[in-house]
């Protein structure tokens, strides 16, 4: 009996080792361990053995059965892996093929830059304030200390709206800067105040590659008891350093705007040479950036704030110009003509 079992084991082992396909392995499993398999038959014959032989043979059979099963399983695993390997060799899929093109959307570059600037100022505690694009002469000019015969008020720079006139407010215009919102904000919230005002503005100017009648500005206003030019320098340096992600210095030069006194032209370190001088900055080391200054007493008064109690500064820069500078856009008209081939370049 023992010999029979051993012979069967040896035979099975050999056949299993020699098996080369999953199909033949399946057949072997059936042949030996199936319902009518040789091993199963022997196990069924166990009941006919003398009792004293049953335990030993029984155990032998169990061990042998387990051994066969694990051999079969092992061989199965090997054959399965071989099959996968063969499939891999035959697989001709070309991984250098281009990936699936997903349809993606685009956010306008002006929106992106505006958001970036807003986030920087929000972190410095500035609220974001918006105002109407259609304004009165009062808010756009007189309130900002720009007198009636000031050059900026001529027809050639401002768009006027027909049939609109009011005693106090004067004619209606398309705002030429975001500064009117300074007065509206002061009137609404009083001092102390820390706001930025982005927005669309309009100038009656011929359009070419560097000028458009419609463009975007960003305005900032900070008013409190002791706000000074030193704070202006500090905040603008911090803002520009963050925006351009580099070390930054600013410088003030005397400038003139009716709504500030002192009035400042603010230059920043040349982005290419950091103050040493190069072709980009005409060897001065500085790039013009924006106008600024201490808010004029008349403007504070128009905003309902007492200039003897509070003081502050304001600045304004071209968001459009900044956006063109950041992305190297050479024609301003791209920003407003909705050409999808332009818009698709920005995510």
């Amino acid at each position, binding site marked *: 009996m023992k010999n029979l079992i051993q012979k069967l084991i040896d035979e099975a082992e050999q056949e299993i080792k020699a098996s080369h396909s999953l199909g033949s392995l399946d057949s072997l499993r059936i042949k030996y361990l199936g319902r009518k398999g040789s091993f199963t038959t022997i196990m069924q014959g166990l009941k006919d053995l003398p009792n004293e032989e049953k335990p030993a043979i029984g155990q032998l059979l169990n061990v042998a059965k387990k051994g066969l099963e694990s051999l079969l399983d092992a061989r199965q695993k090997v054959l399965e892996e071989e099959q996968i390997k063969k499939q891999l060799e035959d697989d001709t899929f070309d991984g250098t093929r281009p990936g699936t093109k997903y349809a993606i959307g685009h956010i306008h570059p002006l929106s992106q830059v505006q958001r970036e600037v807003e986030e920087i100022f929000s972190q410095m*505690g500035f609220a974001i304030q918006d105002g109407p694009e*259609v304004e009165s002469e009062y808010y756009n000019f007189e309130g900002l200390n720009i007198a009636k*015969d000031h050059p900026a008020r001529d027809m050639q720079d401002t*768009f006027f709206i027909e049939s609109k006139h009011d005693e106090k407010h004067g004619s209606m215009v398309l705002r030429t800067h975001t500064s009117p919102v300074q007065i509206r904000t002061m009137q609404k919230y009083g001092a102390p105040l820390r706001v930025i005002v982005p927005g669309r503005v309009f100038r009656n100017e011929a359009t070419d590659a560097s000028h458009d009648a419609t463009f975007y500005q960003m305005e900032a206003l900070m008013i409190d008891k002791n706000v000074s030019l030193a704070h202006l*320098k500090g905040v603008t340096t911090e803002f520009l350093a963050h925006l351009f992600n580099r070390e930054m210095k600013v*410088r003030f030069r005397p400038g003139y705007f009716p709504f500030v006194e002192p*009035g400042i032209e603010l230059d920043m370190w040349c982005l290419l040479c950091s103050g040493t001088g190069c072709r980009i900055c005409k060897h001065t080391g500085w790039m013009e950036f924006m106008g600024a200054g201490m808010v004029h007493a008349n403007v504070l008064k128009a905003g309902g704030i007492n200039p003897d109690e509070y003081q502050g500064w304001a600045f304004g820069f071209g968001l459009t110009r900044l956006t063109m500078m950041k992305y190297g856009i050479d024609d301003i008209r791209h920003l407003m003509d909705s050409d999808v081939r332009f818009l698709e370049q920005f995510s």
Partner: protein
Amino acid sequence: MKISLNWLKKFADIPESVSAQQLAELFTIRTAEVENVTNEGELLHRIVVGKILSIQPHPNADKLRVTQTQVDKNTTLQIVCGAKNIREQMYVIVALPGSRVRWHGQGEPITLEATQLRGVESHGMICGADEVGLPQPDPNDDVPDLSTYELTKDYVFGENEKGIKPGTPLAFVLNKNDIILEIDNKSLTHRPDLWGHYGIAREMAAIFGTRHKAYEKAVQLAKLEKLPKESSPLTVIIKNKEICPRFTACVMRNVKVKESPQWLKNDLIKVGIRPVNNIVDVTNHIMLGLGQPMHAYDRKLVATDQLEIRFAHDGETLETIDHKHHKLHREDPIITNGRIPLTIAGIMGGAHSEISNDTTEIILEAANWHPATVRKASQRNGLRTEAVQRFEKSLDAEMTLIALRRAIALIQKLCPKAELVGGIVDHYVTKIPTRQIEVSPEKIQRKIGDPILLKEMKEILKKLEFRIIASTSKKITIEVPSFRATKDISTEDDIVEEIARMHGYEKITPVLPALPIKLPKQNRQRKLEHATRSIFSNMLHFSETYNYSFYSQDTLRKAKLPEEFHLKIKNPLSEEQTHLRISLVPNILHALHRNLRFKKSLQIYEIGHTYAEEHEYFPREELWVVGAVVTEKNSTRNAFLDIKGAVDVYMQALGIPGDDWEKSSSSHTAAHPHIHMMHRAASGQELVHAYALHPIIAKNFDLQDHNIAMFEINLSQLESQKLTERTYVPIPRHPGIEFDVAILIDKKTPAETIKKKIENADLELIKDVSLFDHYEGPNIASSKKSLAYRILLQSDNRTLTDEDMARAQKTIGENITAIGGTVR
């Protein structure tokens, strides 16, 4: 504006140790922007006058000769030269090694070195005019012959040049030893006192803390006590006093009009003014020097010895000296001789009384004009002159008499026989009262944010000629000098600026203000804008566009928008930009049209303002987001359904409550009459519209060949809606059952109706009804459509059975049959 440093040095001490570049930078930081610095001499460094002592033929080249040229008192150099016109004893231009020349006037300048030419050493170069950047006097000469000293008008000789010698730097010979600063005019807008060399010199002296001469001491002026005792033959009548704060004039005779002397021409040419004749040049020289524009008339042509100052009458005419004819306007300030207009005051003289070579008697005028009047007249007549640029800035009226006295002295210097006829006429109509300002040193410091001692403040004021009348630690009383009192300095803040800039803006240390912990007020609309962009661009692959705020009347009519709600622009740039938009749709349609030349499908949107006339003063301005989808012809996509699906995502992502879509009957003129759905807010307002583009509108915008749908969302109204917060819904614990239902039904039955009928079959268990196929076509009856739905049955608390499914299917079948459909 061009400024000559040598001219400035006549009025003020400018430290020698300061380089031109440093000077420019310092002036830029303290006062006004210097855009450019030209060092005339630099270009001619190491280029000298040489004298050819001998000429020998070149052993190896026929066209070359070998010269021995003396280049200074003790040095003679061997120089090889190919010029044909050289001869012994000739004075020539020699470039020494180290100088910069252009070979034959071409290309970039190179640095000259000693070299060998065809085997013979040459230690310099005898230059052609173009090689040193000079114009060629005689085209027949290869190299200029300096021996004659008499070159053309283009070469300007120095006033003190007595004779040239070997070694004389060419820069000296040609009087090119000056430094020219170009100041940006825009940065001088508020400084009427800086529009002449004298004012600039005064300012520079203040900057450097050096001395400057009073104008009367620096130049010769006609002495008041030496003027003729008789009054002037001139009668000056100022009819409109508001035009002319001050008018001074005088008559001179025995004047000989001729070319100005070289030094005078030099001064003018250097700063970019063309010399004309001695009289005109004198008036220009004084304008550039003192900063006071002047005018000279031919007395005989004026004829009446009368000058009348008034506004013109509409229709009066004048021919100006540039030979243009002007029709005058009743706000134009003019000077007449009592009969006809002679000049447009403060702007340009008339041809009628122009100085010519025959003039022997002149009337000189130095006046002060009302700035806005001159400015407007200049624009109206299209005449922008050097005089206008100055008068419009509000000049100091004190300068007029001084200028006149200078003119008299200068003309007498140029024409020794010239003399005054009678004395000076001076009508000082409006004198600006002396201005005093009180300032608080503490306030000044507080505004600047940098510690500045009272002592320094007073020093600065003194340098700027502000007279300190009284001063304590709390208050300084200052008297403003006349040349700063016309416009620039009137308030305490103006003094803050003076102190700050002269102290030095660069000295201010940047300080960051303390940050309050309280967060700034939130801008809800902005958050909504960001969310809108995030959803449409990042989630849904739309491209954000920006369009103009205006369109044309033609456009609004094509879009069938009501004209009466539009604001109109009085002075539009073009016919395309006359009306302010009340809807974003038309410009989006234009944008679609432009893009469809290059693209077959599009999805774009814009967030922007509309402006509607409300018959109040201010219009109603609202923020909208409007978008469009264009699908390719023959595409399986349906533009309207794409739009509707996109808006569904938007609504869901924002948590906008409100009922389902409802069919819109609102009069959105661009919308297809029955493919138009909308959402209302809980309060009933129309928030969202989605529609297929009306075919007539499509045709009007030349978009008829495309499948287009639009959405419009009023963000201003959306902002005030309460948005629902998302809450978690527990994941079902028991599996659901999905099955499909295919329905054949009349085309006209709305999908909404069918869906509701299916849902009603088992309101508790039917959790989702999803249409996944919609077929109309030749395989079924032409009046019918075939729809396939996937139904999801689910219970929250038990596993479903086959009976549940069978029951649901049966009821669905009944409901569908009831509305005339068949379940397949």
